[in-house]
């Protein structure tokens, strides 16, 4: 045990001291923060300003629509989307002019109102957006048209203007959270952030384990080490040492993140304050599943490192590491939307996916206690099995140089000892 500790400590100290550690510690949050703020910034940019034109031979409905669209909606708040609307009559050149303006980017789209063929029927609306992807614009247009048509019909049936306004006032739903229940949206944000964190750190440090084994193979130091300690101790020390570096990094990030959120700076960081709600059990679950995930993937990485002789060879094999992680990534959306669906429930029990997906379920869904227990047991058991296999590959592979072993050779390695 003392030797494992020595190996782990050396690995830890040497890694913490490197410039690479400092750089990733600083850069990764900046990149992730950049993504989050960048996308929310872009999102607000897109929806906040749009300029459309309404073409109609009958000006009254067009003006009503303009009024409806330009009025800031209460439910959107002060920062809601704003719209500038031009109203014009239909002329010969109108469509050509509007199309030109669409091309030049002055206009985000135009709505063409054709009078109804039969009296009493609603007119025909045709919307031509600048790009195909104007879902939010189309939505606000549709609801505005609905309101205008409704208002018109009601007015025709003799309802007074004030009554109409009161009736059409959108309903406000106030959300009050029960005590100890985190607001779901905020939890989703924190879980996504932590999911990415886990994903990146497991990937990064799993590869680091493999790389550090290859480095030891190329520097040939392990032969000196093997003259005093067992290969299993070497491997354990490496996984613990490299993993502690990852844990340190995550701890730094989380502490910095919490400090930042609780400080007065938080509201100034984004347009709206970013909720980052974490409860203590969530943080505990995060570390538990993070550890399991790290152990699972880094033992696989250790086996890959022991089987290969160079970084290039490792690249060819790191599919085994990347594929299951990437799958978790793809499945994340589905699990986020419905953490308690049978799909999510069964997937979260499959060991390679448990650390990431069960963690999401535990924070957002309502897994039964037996599910949590089973996921922990299954993952621990498979980690044990993987370490068993890996340490056999490792003890042979670490002394093996030359060509990469093929599958029959690998199976033979497992039978040794």
């Amino acid at each position, binding site marked *: 045990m003392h030797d494992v500790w*020595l190996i782990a400590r050396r690995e830890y100290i040497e890694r913490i001291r490197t410039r690479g550690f400092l750089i990733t510690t600083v850069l990764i949050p900046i990149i992730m923060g950049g993504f989050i703020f960048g996308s929310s910034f872009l999102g607000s940019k897109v929806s906040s300003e749009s300029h459309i034109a309404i073409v109609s031979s009958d000006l009254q409905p067009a003006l009503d629509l303009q009024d409806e669209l330009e009025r800031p909606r209460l439910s959107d708040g002060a920062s809601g989307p704003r719209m500038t609307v031009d109203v014009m009559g239909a002329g010969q050149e109108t469509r050509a002019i509007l199309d030109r303006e669409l091309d030049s980017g002055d206009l985000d789209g135009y709505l063409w109102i054709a009078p109804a063929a039969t009296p009493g029927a609603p007119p025909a609306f045709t919307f031509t957006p600048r790009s195909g992807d104007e879902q939010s614009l189309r939505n606000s247009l549709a609801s505005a048209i609905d309101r205008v048509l409704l208002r018109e019909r009601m007015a025709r049936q003799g309802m007074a203007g004030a009554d109409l306004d009161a009736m059409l006032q959108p309903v406000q739903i106030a959300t009050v959270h029960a005590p100890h229940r985190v607001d779901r949206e905020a939890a989703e944000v924190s879980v996504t952030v932590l999911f990415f964190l886990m994903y990146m750190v497991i990937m990064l440090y799993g590869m680091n384990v493999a790389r550090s084994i290859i480095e*030891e193979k190329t*520097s040939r130091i*392990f*032969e*000196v080490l093997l003259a005093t300690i067992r290969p299993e101790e070497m491997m354990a020390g490496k996984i613990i040492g490299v993993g502690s570096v990852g844990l340190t990094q995550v701890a730094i990030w989380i502490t910095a993140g919490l400090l930042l959120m609780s400080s007065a700076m938080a509201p100034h960081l984004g347009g709206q304050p970013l909720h980052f709600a974490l409860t203590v059990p969530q943080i505990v679950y995060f570390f538990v599943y993070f550890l399991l995930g790290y152990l699972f993937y880094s033992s696989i990485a250790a086996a890959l490192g022991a089987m290969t002789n160079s970084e290039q060879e490792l690249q060819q094999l790191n599919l085994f590491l990347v594929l299951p992680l990437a799958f978790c990534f793809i499945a994340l959306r589905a699990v986020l939307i419905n953490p308690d669906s049978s799909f999510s429930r069964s997937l979260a029990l499959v060991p390679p996916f448990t650390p990431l997906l069960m963690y999401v379920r535990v924070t957002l869904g309502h897994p039964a206690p037996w599910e949590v227990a089973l996921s922990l047991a299954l993952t621990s058991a498979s980690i044990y099995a993987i370490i068993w296999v890996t340490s056999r590959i490792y003890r*042979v592979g670490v002394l093996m140089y030359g060509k990469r072993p093929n599958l029959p050779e690998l199976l*033979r*390695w497992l039978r040794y*000892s």
Partner: protein
Amino acid sequence: MPIVQLQNVRKVYDTKVAVEDLSFAIQPGTMFGLLGPNGSGKTSSIRMMIGITAPDSGAVSLFDRPFHRSMLARVGYLPEERGLYKKMRVLDQLVFLGQLHGLSAAEASKRARLWCERLNIAEAIPKKTEDLSKGMQQKIQFIAAVLHEPDLIIMDEPFTGLDPVNAALLMDTLGDLRREGRAVLFSTHRMDQVEKMCDNIALIHRGLLVLSGSMRDVKSSYPRNRVVIQFEGSEGFLSHPSIETKKRYNGHAEIKLRPSATLADDAQSLLSEALRHARITRFEVMEPTLEEIFIEKVGEATPKNGSAIFEPESEEERAGELVDA
């Protein structure tokens, strides 16, 4: 009480017999030379002494007891393939390796400094290993092998890659360690070094022991039929009838005498013949050199293909598997 004892050790890798029925023992305070061409099983034998691999049959004992990993703290090992952590500072590296052998950090640091001074590399202490010259790195590795004052020092090709001054320094240091009562085993191809330093030798070829014993016994089992002459003048004496083969260099001749019951007399008659032709500055009658014995023994064992002596060993063949001890 032997420090190391191998008894009828056999080791087979997948398809290749690495060591077959190998037995020898090393006594404390002696220097033991393990000789053999590349791929003959030297490294495999050494690896079995330090538990990196275990023999398939036969027994390895360390310090008069069956091998156990706990004894490894008393063994120092310099592998043939040198390896140090490149990015690590020299002192940290030595302290780390010392700690693995059971030293405290403070003690390891103190000894590391003393050893660096002893081997004239004190200026390397604060540097990173990758910034050092190859020779310096080798000295660091040497220190790592002896820092914990092991009773058994195993060095696989310790002098390759060193300049003559540093090779001599390490040889002297190994001599000092032997005088302190430690057992030193080293493997090498350099027969002149073995001849100068070793008390006992074992020559293995293709996994088999072909020659072993004390240096003196091995040499004296061969007739003193070699003559080295240094001369100025005519080399007419080289046609003397007692000469079987000869190698002629400028003012220097190495002669093998014809087998005979009266070798000593033949040598004297050769000397007087030589004196008639030339001015002799050196005349030495001796046993064959270890190198000649080596080539002869290895050549015998490979009757058809004499050039196989220095065949490069393939990388895969050296791979070993590990077995718990």
